[in-house]
């Protein structure tokens, strides 16, 4: 009981100390307080993960608000394996960012404020992931939005930073309406907001409600609540159509971007995981989650392709990655989403911090960047043509993937394919990932045949191992209940036709990708090249304008403000 409290307490105390005494301390001491708090918390989080893994979930109440015999609100902590894993991720990222910021923000007038806010934010995320009920989670969800806003406005005399901070905050606010409405309905229909009680009550009392008078438009209560809460996750994890805030938050200092992309953005995925038993009761909600995730992946990844600013590229990459994570949840692969979240968190934090250092160096050295931009792929230095062996290896391995997938699914994971469409689709995404690695390797270096071929085979084994480990071990680590993880996959199963279409599209896309890469590399002209080029041009314009979604929102914004001025005049 003491360890989880201390994990939260260290960053909080560091934040409070910096806030109270920071202005009278030297910068180096301020940083020391922040870094020490983060390190202490991280060490305890490691111990906590070990302890929870071996001794089971810890759940306790610190304070209960009683009202007429009923306790609505319990302030406490729920530390299960999911929370313990998240705590370790958060504290590790916090340590990295605190340490990085010591030098990076040197000389900045907001040095003290930054470290205070960073410690506070760490505390808020830790409290969020250890909340034992929806109401407490929502309170910290709100505080997270506010703390993020203050960090994004770190440089508050910078108009763009302020504008984008406001935009982020407001979009989160839109999501929060849905979230709060979901909480409201959950209490109304199930009489509790405590997670375990809520899941039990929802499983026992499946019911429908009519949204319109006369029993018209009947919906399942669980679906209604699940969708409402999912709106909150959409906003926080930058999913379509509320994805517009994330790519515009690059005016904040690089450590803030790193923290945001590695930690805060994961809140949506965490929320879905926390409520996994609830979502598993509503397949249609999971399908909707999957749909939103896929849409976000496609939009985020395609918009990323046309960016020419390194931080914006990373921003759109995060949008796509978060879409992928949400999609995993929609497929019932909740544990894999957490695995993805952790991997992405570390990977993106390192990319951002690396980008920050690069930008810093570029500012110091007028000759940087050198002759080529980041988006130009390395050229083949001696103009050698690609080897047949490389191609054969890549193509062969990629095409073998479906076979390997089926083998893994059937013989190792023991998944009944006809019942667990989610699992199969997820395995197909493994194929997509492996193919992508092949494409990238080929594009980077396609001449040194044996090395590349070996790398490809190595990469395949690595990906296979990671997916297998994540799919099997990590899933059962996070959801150890018998049949629990399988139940989620089952709940996410699609109607057969939809399932077949998704598989077909995935297959066609991969084969088409190989075809295009191959013909381009060989310098061969394909009969649809002109047509493709014209589409590419149009797509470029659409993508560089971000599908015009930002512009539509801006127009709404201006219209509302104009109307508001008229109303204000008469008030």
């Amino acid at each position, binding site marked *: 009981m003491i360890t989880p409290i201390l994990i939260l307490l260290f960053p909080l105390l560091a934040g409070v100390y910096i806030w109270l005494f920071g202005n009278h301390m030297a910068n180096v001491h301020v940083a020391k307080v922040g870094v020490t708090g983060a390190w202490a918390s991280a060490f305890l989080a490691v111990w906590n993960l070990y302890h929870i893994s071996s001794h089971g979930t810890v759940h306790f109440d610190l304070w209960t*608000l009683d*009202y*007429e015999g*009923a306790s*609505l*609100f319990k302030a406490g902590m729920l530390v299960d394996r999911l929370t313990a894993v998240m705590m370790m991720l958060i504290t590790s990222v916090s340590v990295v960012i605190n340490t990085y910021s010591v030098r990076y923000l040197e000389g900045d007038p907001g040095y003290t404020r930054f470290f205070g806010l960073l410690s506070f934010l760490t505390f808020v995320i830790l409290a969020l992931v250890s909340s034992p009920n929806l*109401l407490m989670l929502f*309170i910290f969800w*709100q505080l997270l939005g*506010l703390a993020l*806003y*203050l960090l994004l*406005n770190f440089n*508050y*005399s910078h*108009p763009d930073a*302020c504008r984008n901070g*406001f935009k982020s*905050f*407001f979009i989160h*606010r*839109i999501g*929060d*309406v849905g979230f*709060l*409405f979901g*909480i*409201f309905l959950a*209490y*109304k*229909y*199930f*009489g509790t907001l405590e997670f375990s009680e809520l899941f039990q009550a929802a499983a026992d009392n499946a*019911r429908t*409600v*009519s*949204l319109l*008078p006369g029993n018209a438009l009947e919906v399942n209560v669980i679906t209604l609540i699940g969708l409402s809460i999912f709106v909150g996750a959409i906003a926080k994890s930058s999913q379509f159509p509320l994805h517009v805030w994330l790519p515009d938050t690059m005016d904040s200092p690089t450590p803030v971007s790193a923290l945001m992309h590695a930690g805060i953005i994961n809140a949506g995925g965490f929320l879905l995981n926390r409520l996994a038993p609830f979502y598993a009761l509503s397949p249609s909600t999971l399908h909707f989650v999957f749909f939103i995730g896929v849409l976000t992946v496609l939009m985020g990844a395609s918009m990323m392709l046309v960016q020419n600013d390194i931080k914006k590229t990373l921003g759109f990459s995060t949008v796509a990655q978060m879409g992928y994570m949400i999609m995993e949840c929609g497929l019932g692969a909740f544990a894999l989403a957490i695995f993805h979240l952790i991997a992405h968190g570390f990977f993106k934090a390192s990319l951002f911090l690396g980008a920050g250092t690069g930008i810093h160096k570029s500012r110091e050295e007028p000759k940087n960047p050198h002759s080529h931009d980041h988006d130009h792929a390395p050229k083949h230095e001696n103009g050698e043509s690609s080897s047949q062996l490389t191609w054969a290896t890549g193509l062969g391995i990629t095409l073998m993937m479906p076979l390997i997938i089926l083998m893994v699914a059937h013989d190792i994971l023991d998944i009944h394919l006809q019942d667990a469409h989610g699992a199969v689709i997820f395995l197909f995404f493994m194929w997509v990932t492996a193919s992508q690695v092949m494409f990238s390797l080929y594009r980077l270096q396609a001449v040194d045949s044996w090395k590349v071929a070996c790398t490809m085979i190595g990469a395949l084994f690595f990906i296979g191992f990671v997916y297998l480990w994540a799919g099997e071990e990590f899933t059962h680590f996070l959801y150890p209940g018998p049949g629990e993880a399988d139940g989620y996959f089952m709940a996410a199963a699609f109607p057969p036709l939809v399932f077949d279409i998704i598989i077909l599209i995935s297959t066609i896309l991969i084969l088409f990708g190989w075809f295009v890469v191959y013909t381009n590399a060989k310098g061969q002209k394909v009969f649809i090249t002109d047509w493709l080029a014209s589409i590419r041009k149009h797509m470029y314009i659409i993508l560089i304008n971000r599908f015009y979604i930002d512009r539509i929102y801006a127009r709404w914004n201006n219209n*509302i*403000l104009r*109307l*508001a*001025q*008229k*109303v*204000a*005049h*008469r*008030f």
Partner: protein
Amino acid sequence: MENQNFLSISLALIPFFIGVAGVLAKISFSNLKTLSLGAISIVGVFLVIFVDINPPTNFLACAVLIAGFCVLISQDRSQQTSEFGSSSMITLGLTLGTLLGQGFVGRFFLCLFLGYAAFSIAQEMRRSFRKTLTLIHFLFAIVLSLSSAMGSDSVKLLSGFFLAVTFLPLVPFHLPFVGMVENAKGALSSLWMVVWLAIGLAELNLIYPSLATDSLFYVGFLALITAFYAAMAALGQKKANLFIAAATVAHVSVIWGLLNIFPNFPKWGIAFGVAVAFILGGINLAFSFVRMRYGWQSIGKLPGLATPMPRFGTVMVLLVGLALFLPMVPTFTGLSGMPTIETVDINFIKIFLIFLAVWLGGGWFFMQMLHQTAFGETRTDVPYSDLRLTEFTAVIILILGAGYSGILY
């Protein structure tokens, strides 16, 4: 009981007489401030320890005293006139009389309060159709408050309802409230806000058990219109006082909207109402300090105050932070008493829309205001000076009061 009633009225008369004495005897502000703060403290102690009245009324009376205390303590002895102190104490006395007085005595104090408010507006407001409408509204309210003391139950209910929508303003009954907040001088505007809402909460508490479900249904629609209208008005408003008035009206609409969703109004409604009064009153008070220094009136004309005025920046961030969470207060407290029976009706959609307007509107207009005052480029032509410790303390007390009311009460 008789003794309790007498004690309550005596307590209300103390600040009232101090205010009147301030006007008649031309006491300096410095002396009046000392006297008033002492009196408020004594009345507060008596109210908590010796007066046995129902808890909501007691809570509202304490809230009013705290607001008066904060407004007075924040004023600089050398810069403020005795008129300010007198006016504050008279307002406090009349409000306490209205809240604590039973039956006819309470109504009599309410008439005096309305008369005093109307007199203030008549003096300050420029001649216009709006002023005429506002004064007619005041007249009507005075007549109804008297009739509620003497009329039948239905008259009492009707007049009580009219007074409730006047003091907890719903469109189109918001003109007196907006007029008071707009025209009151300096920090007095903040005090008027708190006392106005406190009386409104007391009135609603009085008539709430008698309100029929049907009438609440229609009131809910009025609340919905008010929520959207006031939120839009706050969004488009540039004048600081009017911005606060519109934001307050928008938040008050939540109370009316939730009336037929959550039972036990005294539990959640009064806590929320007082939290709204303290937070919005706190913003008003903080703005009055800026106005006193730089003659500032329009939001956006003096940005970047957080840099030269860090104390102001801190209180604004705290106030806006709390203001953004305000709609959660009734949800939080109301949930505890909400029956978990299965009822789906249009009320749900209605309250969702009200919530949407206030939540999103609040998120937008409070943040916009914060950006246009605390953040941004600092002007070089303004001799900035940060808030004094007493000013800072006064706002912090209001923030703590709002926190207590919204979360703990």
